[in-house]
């Protein structure tokens, strides 16, 4: 087999198996083979890895495909699992075709008012889409924090020497007109940890829409799903169209409606995924009903650590809207001492309230869901 055939064949298979390989990487791999030769399979493997794999998460997949291609191991036609985020059986699965045909969605404004108050779980599929539509159109005013990057300013705090000097040239080296710089503002990071276990089934999509809307507005937003395992879906959510984003998320997440190991997922978040750094100084929104079947000790430790890192922890619980709600679920009770606020999350209105709370963590502002394009 010639090197070029080997490269194109292998890269092709990687792409089929779901790894994105840019053309430039394939070219690098080819150049590498020409330099070193293809005598030693272990060396070829490392050359391919260094040129084609751009993220540690893809290592496992890469190894599998490499073995398959070069040693014919574990060859089987594995179709990627399609999981639908259509949260009820009446809805058509959101496959490729589901995204492309433009569904006509009209929000009836009189109905919209009523829709805002209703529990998402009790809505018909069509109404639920309308509710999500409302959430998608939230406007956020970012919670801010001081940045370290200096910007132009009128406050005479810190002299901008570069500009002042340029002006001084015109006045015989006398710094008559002075220019200043000061620290600017940046969005504070927003971090969503979304429980997508069975009991949260009806509500998780609502929060994912909420996360999508906030990501559009704020930029520095990270989203993880907690289920049987931890998934970083920040990138998948980053589509221009909310439906496309949801479809991409469901392709990434495989354990929708799985079991709950809330404490363990949180602990995993703290130790892996650069979680410690992500949570530092961030506004953390945990979306869960607090059912945890794991060890309460693990949950306690994980929350304590998160609490020491984050600026604010908001716990959003869809059950909290009920008048007689008491946080008795074991995980919820364990988390309670470590959170700044427990908020309901069962309807559009609750999400509006959540948006207000998030935005007031920085500079107080008003948020509203816009119903009119006026």
């Amino acid at each position, binding site marked *: 087999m010639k090197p070029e055939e080997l490269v194109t064949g292998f890269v092709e298979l990687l792409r089929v198996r779901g790894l994105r390989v*840019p053309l*430039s*990487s394939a070219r*690098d791999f080819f*150049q*590498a083979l020409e*330099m*070193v030769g293809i005598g030693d399979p*272990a*060396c070829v493997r*490392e*050359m391919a*890895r*260094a*040129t084609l*794999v*751009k*993220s*540690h998460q893809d*290592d496992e997949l890469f190894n599998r495909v490499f073995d398959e291609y070069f040693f014919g191991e574990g060859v089987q036609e594995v179709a990627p699992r399609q999981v639908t985020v259509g949260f009820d059986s009446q809805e058509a699965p959101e496959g490729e075709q589901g995204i492309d045909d433009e569904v006509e969605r009209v929000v009836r404004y009189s109905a919209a008012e009523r829709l805002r108050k209703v529990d998402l779980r009790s809505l018909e599929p069509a109404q639920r889409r309308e509710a999500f539509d409302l959430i998608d159109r939230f406007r956020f005013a970012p919670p801010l924090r001081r*940045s*370290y*990057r*200096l910007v132009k300013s009128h406050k005479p705090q810190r002299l901008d*020497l*570069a500009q002042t*000097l340029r002006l*001084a*040239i*015109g006045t*015989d*080296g006398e*710094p008559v007109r002075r220019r200043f710089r000061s620290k600017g503002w*940046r969005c504070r990071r927003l971090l969503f940890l979304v429980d997508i276990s069975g009991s949260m089934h009806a509500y998780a999509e609502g929060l994912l829409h909420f996360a999508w809307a906030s990501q559009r507005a704020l930029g520095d937003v*990270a989203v993880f799903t907690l289920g049987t395992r931890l998934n970083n879906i*920040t*990138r998948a959510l980053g589509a221009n169209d909310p439906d496309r984003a949801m479809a991409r998320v469901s392709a990434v997440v495989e354990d929708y409606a799985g079991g709950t190991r809330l404490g363990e997922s949180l602990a995993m978040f*703290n*130790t892996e*995924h*650069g979680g*410690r*750094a*992500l949570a530092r100084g961030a506004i953390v929104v945990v979306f869960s009903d607090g059912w945890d079947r794991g060890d309460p000790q693990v949950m306690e*430790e994980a929350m304590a*650590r998160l609490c020491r890192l984050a600026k604010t922890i908001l716990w959003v619980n869809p059950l909290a809207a009920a008048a007689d709600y008491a946080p008795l679920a074991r995980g919820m009770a364990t988390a309670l001492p470590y959170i700044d606020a427990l908020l309901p999350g069962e309807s559009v209105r609750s999400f509006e309230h959540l948006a207000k709370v998030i935005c007031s963590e920085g500079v107080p502002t008003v948020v509203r869901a816009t119903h009119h394009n006026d």
Partner: protein
Amino acid sequence: MAESRTDQLGVATPEKLAQGLSSVDYLADLKIATASFLALALEKPLLLEGDAGVGKTELALALSRLFGSDLIRLQCYEGIDATQAVYDWDYAKQLLHLRATEAVGVQADRTSLEAELYEDRYLIERPLLRSLGYADPTRPPVLLIDELDRADDEFEAFLLELLSTFEITIPELGTRRALVKPVVILTSNRTRDLHDALKRRCLYLWVDHPSFEREVEIIRLRVPEASASLAAQIGAIVQEFRRQGLVKPPGIAEAIDWASALTRLTAVEVTPAWLEMTLGTVIKYREDEERIDSVGLTTLIERAFARFGA
């Protein structure tokens, strides 16, 4: 075609590079050697990710030792911008120059005055600009851009341009182009995802904790005073600690520190008493200490020795 960079540097194959690195006290496995070799051969930046203390920065140091060249380090932090990374002007000196010109009563016009002000002598070279100023191809400078994820997006975009052209334009002085491209090593702690555009320009290497045998070798190399049996015991216990799911699992850096500490204290083997006394060199979090205590120092040591036969 001109002689390739790896030939110029006398490291024609990944194995040769690994040998070279071990001669300057860096033991590289096949994965690290191959990725570093390709970074040199294809003249591409190498992006390193991995836990703290696995030897990411050390690789850059070792490469500069190997080539006998300068290591230029740019530590990133939030808010870093061109004036700290590329170049700045010495404003105080410039102002003095202006006042002096005025004092001796030279009637200079603005343009010539400006030209005088923005000359090389008032230029402060920051790391990125400095890395372009080398001319000896057998001793390319190693540019280490450390913890890039701490810098913000704007800086990354700016860096992207530099890494593709290796030239920097200073409006007052013109364009500076690298005669010899620096060997570029980037590290990231994954606090945020770097842009795909940047990753596309780099080769990627995930650095893992070393295997037990490799770790013992490294300890012996870096702490020659430690006996073979002590190094093996330290390696075994550190490996065992990494299996405990700690907040901060000890890296190779901690293992080396610990070995130095034990030899300084004239310990000949790791006993629970010694471990307790020197735990602070390996364990850096109170929760981790509690976790280790709850398992029991004696138990951990026995388990580690049994697993690795130390």
